[in-house]
């Protein structure tokens, strides 16, 4: 009977002597450590989040009054294209990769990812793709012309992307940038799957694996099967544009609708890929801050796997307006209803986890609570839009814009903020400032809802997406004004967030190993964790190894 308990874990040897700047830079550039790569991903995502957020703010200010002239129409087209593309591919995807990278090995008791060098390759090729996209501002029109960014919208419908309608090289930068960064995402997906399957510490069976890891494993699966169709479509687009192929050339019998199908076969799973990190975070944060184990963990795992498969079969609900057969409309509407069921299970289980719990409203928990309400609203408008006749009324209107911003900002971004406040102490060894955090949270909630709630009404009033201005007298002025005011409040919320990051990383209170009294393995390491994570690999006997350790008289494994 072995009974040694080593906790807290032995601290690493005294930190090595000061590094010069070039040595520090080399350590970051040449790193294959999953934690450093995770931080690089998140930092890159934050930079693009700021750039892309400022683009959104510019668009809102352009729309504040009717017939406003802050930006030119073609600039506006580039703004919404770059905003959407950046947010999805260079904010969302690196956050997926960053959170998976940093947390999965720590949570399953491993020393690194399965393929550390592939991991580093994935990050740098992703960054190269992002640089390619932004290089379009300089090189978009070729050497002779003035530079320009892509202006074809984030889903770049054919035939707008054909050579005849999209001159210059801007669309090529769009396709190449995403194609190249997609290679990085696919490498990360394979890495995450291999890590979860092959590197779990002794005793960490699949049923004992933390919910976070479950969700990110299914997320990697979705990336693996949903991203290749986009890559294939972009190869086709580049063949069309450069070798004169006819995939999307309607004059030669090609089909513009094929692009839509291929794009949305990727595009719909993609929104699940983006929301999964938020699901994963909630599944860790809500139990810890409610002081209760996650309600119905097997059902939660089942639901996430169900979403991972059903979401592959709903893509054409983005395409009701193209005139599909009644059978196709019915099928995709029904499949879209179906995916609401496992999502509903998750919402109910998080709520049930909170029910009767001893809830601590720290900043991570506040973001989770806001997530629950906002994501619920997003889900409901999603079900409305999944009904084909309803979609025909509101297709390509601001209602759709409001719907997906409720999922991606109210859902994904809020979930990311919860994750950021929750794991920041682990990553830096310092606590985030609670007061600044609460300012950030409340300004964000108010600003976000002020921005996007009125856009539902704008949709009902008939305002289409992607217009750079509008005439007065259609009842759109008031709601657009409110929406812009809300966006500006969000700007200040993000300022509080940035100030908080800087202040806390310089002078935050020391966090200790386990500031939240949590239960998963990452909190058994020092903060920040040493390069090798665990001096000796842990052995676990239940889904909450740290609970077992802290409560030897009443461990979890007795009930499993």
């Amino acid at each position: 009977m072995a009974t040694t308990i080593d906790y807290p874990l032995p601290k690493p040897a005294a930190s090595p002597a000061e590094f010069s700047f070039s040595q520090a830079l080399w350590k970051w550039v040449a790193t294959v450590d999953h934690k450093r790569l995770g931080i690089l991903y998140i930092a890159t995502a934050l930079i693009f989040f700021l750039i892309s957020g400022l683009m959104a703010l510019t668009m809102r200010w352009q729309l504040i009054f009717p017939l406003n002239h802050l930006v030119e129409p073609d600039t506006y087209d580039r703004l919404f294209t770059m905003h959407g593309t950046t947010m999805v591919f260079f904010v969302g995807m690196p956050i997926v990769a960053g959170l998976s990278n940093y947390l999965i090995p720590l949570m399953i008791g491993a020393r690194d990812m399965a393929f550390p060098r592939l991991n580093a390759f994935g990050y740098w090729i992703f960054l190269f793709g992002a640089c390619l996209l932004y290089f379009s501002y300089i090189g978009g029109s070729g050497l002779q012309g003035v530079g320009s960014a892509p202006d074809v919208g984030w889903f770049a419908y054919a035939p707008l992307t054909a050579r005849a309608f999209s001159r210059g090289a801007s669309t090529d930068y769009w396709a190449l940038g995403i194609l190249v960064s997609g290679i990085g995402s696919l490498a990360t997906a394979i890495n995450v799957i291999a890590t979860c399957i092959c590197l779990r510490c002794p005793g960490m069976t699949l049923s004992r694996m933390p919910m976070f890891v479950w969700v990110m494993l299914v997320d990697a699966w979705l990336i693996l099967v949903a991203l290749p169709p986009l890559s294939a479509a972009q190869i086709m687009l580049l063949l069309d544009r450069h070798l004169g192929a006819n995939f999307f050339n309607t004059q030669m019998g090609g089909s513009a609708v094929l692009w839509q199908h291929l794009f949305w076969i990727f595009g719909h799973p993609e929104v699940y890929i983006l929301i999964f990190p938020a699901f994963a975070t909630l599944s860790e944060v809500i139990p810890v801050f409610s002081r209760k184990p996650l309600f119905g963990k097997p059902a939660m795992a089942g639901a996430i796997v169900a979403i991972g498969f059903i979401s592959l079969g709903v893509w054409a609900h983005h395409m009701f307006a193209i005139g599909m057969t009644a059978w196709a409309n019915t099928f995709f509407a029904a499949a879209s209803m179906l995916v609401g069921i496992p999502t509903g299970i998750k919402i109910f289980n998080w709520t049930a986890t909170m029910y009767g719990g001893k809830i601590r409203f720290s900043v991570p928990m506040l973001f989770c609570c806001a997530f629950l309400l906002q994501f619920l609203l997003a889900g409901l408008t999603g079900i409305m839009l999944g009904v084909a006749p309803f979609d025909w009324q509101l297709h390509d209107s601001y209602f759709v814009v409001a719907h997906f911003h409720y999922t991606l900002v109210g859902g994904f971004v809020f979930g990311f903020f919860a994750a950021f406040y929750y794991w920041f102490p682990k990553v830096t060894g310092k606590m985030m400032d609670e007061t600044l955090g609460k300012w950030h949270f409340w300004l964000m909630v108010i600003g976000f809802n002020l921005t996007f709630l009125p856009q539902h009404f704008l949709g009902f009033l008939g305002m289409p997406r992607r217009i750079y201005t509008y005439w007065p007298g259609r009842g759109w002025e008031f709601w657009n004004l409110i929406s812009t005011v809300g966006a500006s409040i969000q700007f200040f919320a993000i300022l509080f967030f940035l100030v908080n990051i800087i202040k806390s990383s310089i002078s935050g209170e020391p966090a200790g190993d386990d500031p939240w009294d949590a239960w998963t393995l990452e909190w058994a390491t020092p903060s920040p964790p040493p390069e090798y994570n665990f001096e000796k690999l842990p052995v676990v006997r239940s889904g909450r190894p740290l609970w077992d350790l802290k409560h030897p008289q009443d461990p979890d494994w007795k009930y499993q």
Partner: protein
Amino acid sequence: MAGIELVPIPAEEMEQEWKLPDRGTVGVIFFIVMESVIFLVFVMAYLIYIGKSLTGPYPKDVLHTPIAATICLWSSSLTVALAEKALEKERLGLFKLWWIATICLGLEFLTATGLEWKELIYEDHLTIATNLFGTTFYSLVGLHASHVCVGMLFLLIVLGVTLLGFPIQTQLRRVKFLSWYWHFVDAVWVVVFTVVYVVGK
């Protein structure tokens, strides 16, 4: 079982073996899953565009079923498996023989594809831009051929280091992964062959 025991572990559980799949195996399998999805998209595009070309040349006029090349490619799956078996038994001479046979068969396939394309382009005037048949044919067959090329590159690297005296038997695991990739490329040809030369004609 060495490790930090976060909780007391009963002796009988301590003796249980903790064995998980090999990470390389899992990585290669999911890499092949991903590749299959890319091929699936191009195969679907081919099927959708069958008979949709507005102008000639049409498949039935210009395509000749490449029977010899196909036999070569499929039998290379057998030779690479035999090479792998030989390496397992550390019979290096036999390994080199089967490995070179695989490379020759693969090269024969690539040469046949090249000649087929040459004929299509110069005599039948079918390019990727001519019509939908050309677009889907060159992209699907080209995607497959590019995979054969990548496989060929790795086969040649293994042959090169073996001939230079590197102890390849120490890399059995990697040779195995390469042979899986080669089998995958051959299996894809079953689909491509059926779609292009049977269904499409």
